[in-house]
């Protein structure tokens, strides 16, 4: 089997019986065993269950029972419940939590024939942009082991980049799929808010949380999205509308270009992005200058809203019903306080405390309501832009992957890492980061943003770009 394999290629190999699911699954499990000590991208593998499922998939294939992802092994970010398996969100708080049910997207992918290889590493409760806050230790970037893979879906991005999983699920609250995808040189996609169910995904900030994927190609992202998405009565924010994700005929598109977003980038990053823009222009797409006037204040507003929602969502961890329970605490309140103090890491505590502050009496209007008003302004900027363009181009990140511990004492510098991705979550738009080159040996990602339910054009442009470039097929030297 080739080192780099897309889901589409694997499916073809399986359907033409050139390889069995058992062989594919064994190979990826062997790669994890052999190389993941360098990256720390998986926190658990399900060897026996995966191989059992692979044997069953092989039987189904030989019986002609084909499904979109039959027999293909994937990894799940540890934010998603997998029934009967530990789901920890990489936090000490959920160290012993065994999921009693499958997340809807896990179930949907399983129904499409996918096999679960195991769980991937992440920032604790998905709060972070470097994958350094995990209780399992940091993930290292396969392109340079001294660098972070990005976060919070750092384990999923690193696993795909290192070719130890052909695809993984991820979650994106402010950029947690697209930023690590950019840092690791893979394709990171999140759909319109509500198209992928959040049921069984451990909540961080419910109005901003988007399940999505990290894959080698855009075609693979489309394949997974078609299997994952759909209305779910278990999620009260699940959309009843559908996305047009089938291949469309529209080939030449109008692409919005907010040039001010590109102007402050270091040259090494600006250059590949400029090359990518030219390639898209040469394909007959029209570049149209657009303005996003409230872009600069999005990160600040995002941190008010996301921390407020986090402080409410994480109130459920009281040490009583589930999660870590402190061995100390003679009163109910003391037990609860000690359990939360011992169970949560520093970044999670910072965000809960910040959220509590912005929701408290005397600050609620000045912070929380104000940030929600700014959210409307940001969303409306995009709606206005999409009146004249089909898609928007943007950088995915302001830098390439930074060194481990570079931002240990700089929480707000870390938050600014998500400046290009956060506004998209505030507006609930579909978006992806695709590899478009390298800067000083590290991958650079181009972000493409679509209008609500505009996944079809997003996939179409991404597939076109990847048919003309091979950045997405590059492999890190650490694999050799």
């Amino acid at each position, binding site marked *: 089997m080739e080192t780099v394999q897309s889901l589409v290629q694997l499916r073809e190999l399986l359907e033409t019986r050139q390889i069995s699911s058992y062989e594919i699954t064994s190979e990826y499990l062997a790669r994890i065993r052999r190389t993941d000590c360098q990256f720390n991208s998986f926190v658990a593998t399900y060897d026996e269950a995966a191989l059992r499922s692979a044997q069953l998939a092989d039987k189904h294939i030989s019986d002609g029972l084909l499904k979109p992802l039959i027999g293909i092994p994937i990894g799940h970010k540890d934010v998603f419940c997998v029934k009967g398996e530990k789901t920890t969100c990489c936090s000490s708080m959920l160290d012993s939590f065994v999921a009693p049910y499958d997340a809807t997207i896990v179930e949907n992918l399983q129904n499409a024939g996918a096999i679960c290889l195991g769980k991937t590493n992440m920032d604790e409760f998905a709060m972070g942009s470097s994958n350094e806050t995990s209780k399992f230790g940091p993930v290292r970037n396969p392109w340079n082991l001294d660098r972070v893979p990005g976060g919070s879906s750092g384990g999923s991005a690193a696993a795909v980049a290192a070719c130890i999983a052909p695809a993984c699920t991820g979650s994106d609250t402010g950029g947690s799929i697209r930023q690590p995808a950019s840092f690791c040189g893979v394709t990171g996609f999140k759909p319109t808010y509500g198209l992928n169910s959040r049921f069984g995904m451990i909540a961080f900030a419910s109005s901003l949380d988007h399940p999505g994927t990290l894959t080698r190609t855009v075609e693979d992202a489309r394949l997974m999205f078609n299997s994952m998405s759909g209305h779910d009565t278990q999620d009260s924010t699940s959309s009843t509308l559908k996305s047009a994700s089938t291949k469309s005929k529209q080939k030449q598109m109008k692409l919005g270009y907010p040039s001010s977003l590109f102007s402050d980038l270091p040259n090494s990053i600006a250059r590949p992005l400029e090359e990518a823009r030219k390639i898209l222009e040469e394909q007959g797409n029209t570049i149209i200058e657009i303005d996003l006037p409230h872009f600069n204040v999005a990160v600040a507003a995002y941190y008010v809203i996301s921390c407020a929602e986090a402080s409410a969502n994480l109130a459920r961890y009281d040490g009583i019903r589930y999660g870590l329970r402190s061995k100390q605490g003679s009163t*109910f309140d003391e037990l609860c306080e000690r359990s*939360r103090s011992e169970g949560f890491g520093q970044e999670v505590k910072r965000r*809960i*405390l910040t959220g509590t502050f912005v929701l408290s009496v005397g600050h609620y209007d000045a912070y929380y309501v104000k940030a929600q008003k700014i959210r409307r302004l940001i969303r409306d900027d995009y709606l206005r832009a999409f009146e004249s363009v089909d898609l928007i181009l943007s950088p995915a990140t302001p830098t390439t992957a930074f060194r481990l511990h570079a931002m240990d004492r700089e929480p707000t510098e870390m938050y600014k890492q998500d400046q290009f991705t956060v506004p998209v979550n505030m*507006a609930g738009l579909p978006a992806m980061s695709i590899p478009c080159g390298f800067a000083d040996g590290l991958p650079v990602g181009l972000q493409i943003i679509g209008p609500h339910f505009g996944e079809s054009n997003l996939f179409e442009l991404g597939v076109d770009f990847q048919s003309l470039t091979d950045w997405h097929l590059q492999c890190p030297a650490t694999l050799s």
Partner: protein
Amino acid sequence: MDDTTLARLGQLSRIRLEVDERLPLLQDLSTILKFVDEIKSISTDKIEPLAHPLDSVQALREDVADDDIERDVYQKFAAKTIDGFYVVPRVVDP
């Protein structure tokens, strides 16, 4: 942000703040609040708050009891239960 406010936030969010983590937290929260204060520079007169990016109304299911709550399964991961009840330190004097 000062010691008193931090202590109050710890109390409200039910997080015990150990002595050695108070100073760094105080510094970090001050930095974060200064950072988010940027939102005050934007005029939002006559703008309605936005809670859902698609302006959707939260869907509600029929108010009908279902029987798929398996108490035993969901209490398996509680630290302490007796006869289907969660056990906590005494909250009412005998």
